[in-house]
């Protein structure tokens, strides 16, 4: 299934074809030895200067896409290009156009902050005054100047992550790939990283492709979001468009007792015209309505009439959580197993 959603109220407004997408993937297939099909035909394109988020749970195929787009890995089928340069046929060219910040911090722990940046620049052929200027510029920009002579091992996780991003920018790339840039960061460091990413795309006009399994991160940062599940993109669009497509609010009622699903559905049958996408999951009941505030009393009354007691009830504007639930049939949190999401 592959769906493109336009923002509500502007049908076709964003369909203008852009001559040269900053990043383009067409029908990417990747099978790892052992016959694990990590990607089953992934296509998308990112316009220059946009922040594009690949959203999905661990193991969905996000990192595999990044590895192919950054020339680390070759697809078994399909092709991909960066600003028109094919990643398989012109890897050298592509490497100079992209900056990559991997899932794990990849700083050299035995080198200082400045040495890490300097070596990274040298690997791109930079040297002399130009390299020194860029190193000090990036140290300044990421507030790492006071830590320039510190061995990276002694830096905090947040500082190491900033150094990772700074290293990804040393050669002034056109597109920056961030593979789960905030995983493992504390809330404060995460907020700082978000500000930085927004600034990169905004002020610097960089195209940013980020992968994340944090829904709020995609919602907060990205102009385009693609939800990926089991190696396939299930839906793509703007966060607003995706949410608007859901038409209406989400209501969620936590029941006081666990009851058979059929019993709850029977109690709600009087509201069949009002409630959409009813999902019952243990004691939690979720549904979509045109207006939460006006529908909720009816829901509670219907439950009450069937002697079903409600513990809590909430109304929420649509979120990417709901988008995810709708297109994958699973609540986002459930796919994360024991992993802490927020």
């Amino acid at each position: 299934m592959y769906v493109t959603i336009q923002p509500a109220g502007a049908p076709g407004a964003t369909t203008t074809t852009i001559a040269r997408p900053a990043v383009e993937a067409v029908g990417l297939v990747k099978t790892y030895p052992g016959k694990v099909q990590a990607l089953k035909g992934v296509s998308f394109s990112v316009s220059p200067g946009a922040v594009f988020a690949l959203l999905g749970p661990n193991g969905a195929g996000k990192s595999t896409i990044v590895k192919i787009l950054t020339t680390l890995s070759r697809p078994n089928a399909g092709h991909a290009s960066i600003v028109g340069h094919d990643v398989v046929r012109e890897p050298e060219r592509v490497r100079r156009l992209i900056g990559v910040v991997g899932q794990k911090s990849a700083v050299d722990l035995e080198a200082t902050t400045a040495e890490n940046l300097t070596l990274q620049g040298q690997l791109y052929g930079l040297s002399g005054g130009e390299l020194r200027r860029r190193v000090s510029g990036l140290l300044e920009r990421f507030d790492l100047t006071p830590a320039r002579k510190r061995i990276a091992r002694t830096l905090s996780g947040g500082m190491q992550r900033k150094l990772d991003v700074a290293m990804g920018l040393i050669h002034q790339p056109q597109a920056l790939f961030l593979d789960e840039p905030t995983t493992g960061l504390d809330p404060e460091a995460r907020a700082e990283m978000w500000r930085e990413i927004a600034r990169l795309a905004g002020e610097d006009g960089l195209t940013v492709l980020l992968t994340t399994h944090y829904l709020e991160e995609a919602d907060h940062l990205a102009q385009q979001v693609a939800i990926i599940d089991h190696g396939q993109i299930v839906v793509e669009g703007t966060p607003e468009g995706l949410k608007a497509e859901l038409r209406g609010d989400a209501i969620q009622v936590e029941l006081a007792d666990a009851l058979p699903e059929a019993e709850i559905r029977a109690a709600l049958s009087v509201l069949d015209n009002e409630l959409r996408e009813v999902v019952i999951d243990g004691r939690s009941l979720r549904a979509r309505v045109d207006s939460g505030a006006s529908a909720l009393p009816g829901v509670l009354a219907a439950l009450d009439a069937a002697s079903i007691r409600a513990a809590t009830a909430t109304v929420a504007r649509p979120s990417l959580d709901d988008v995810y639930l709708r297109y994958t049939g699973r609540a986002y949190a459930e796919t994360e197993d024991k992993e802490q999401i927020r």
Partner: protein
Amino acid sequence: MTAALANSAQITNRYLRAFLRQPYYIIGTLIQPVIWLLLFGQLFKSVADIPGFTAASYITFLTPGVVVMSAMLSAGWSGTSYVVDMDRGVMDRFLVTPVRRSALIGGELVYQAGMVLLQSLIILGLGYLVGARFPGGPVSIVLLLVATVLLGTAFASLSNALALILRKQESLIALNVSLTLPLTFLSSAFLPVNLMPEWMQTVARYNPVNWAVEVGRQTLSESVDWPFVAVRLAGLLALTLVCAWLSIRAFRAYQRSV
């Protein structure tokens, strides 16, 4: 080509800098040869009294052996830094830059070769202090160093290849130890070949570690036996090239598996 050389120098520099920041590592690599020299020098001192032992003193005999053995032992650790780089994502970070792939391999080998050379010179100096003499003179010492660096480079390449395939520190170290120690004892590092059991003599003939030790023993004789040296150096060079080829193959296999 210039880019490859510049990149190699940058990679060598990275390792060198990390080495200089680890005083315990420096002391460790120095202490081990001291232990071998002094401990074995004392333990096997009476070997010099056995009929058939021709060298002037046991320490004179032992020193080239310890030079070769130490080179092999320390080069065997080479792959551990690859494992760390793969674990940390540093390897992948390098691979998404335009850095010459040959420089990633070559730069590390240059560092290893330099370490082997430094270590060898220190052991030779130490050996001299405790009574070893080198009647073969400077030419024979250069030959010892060439053979040792070749053997060290070969083992570093092998260690790197294993690291790229195994990707686990424990497996690499276990395999390294179970390879290097037997090879040392199946060479004439501690005992002259003619004092070994017959089957060991046969094994030693095909043992590259023994080739390096035998080239190194030219320091003991007044004149260099050139044909003898040439055959063994050629063998060591061939081994180094084969190991380098293996490490390149392993590197490509790693790239494909990413």
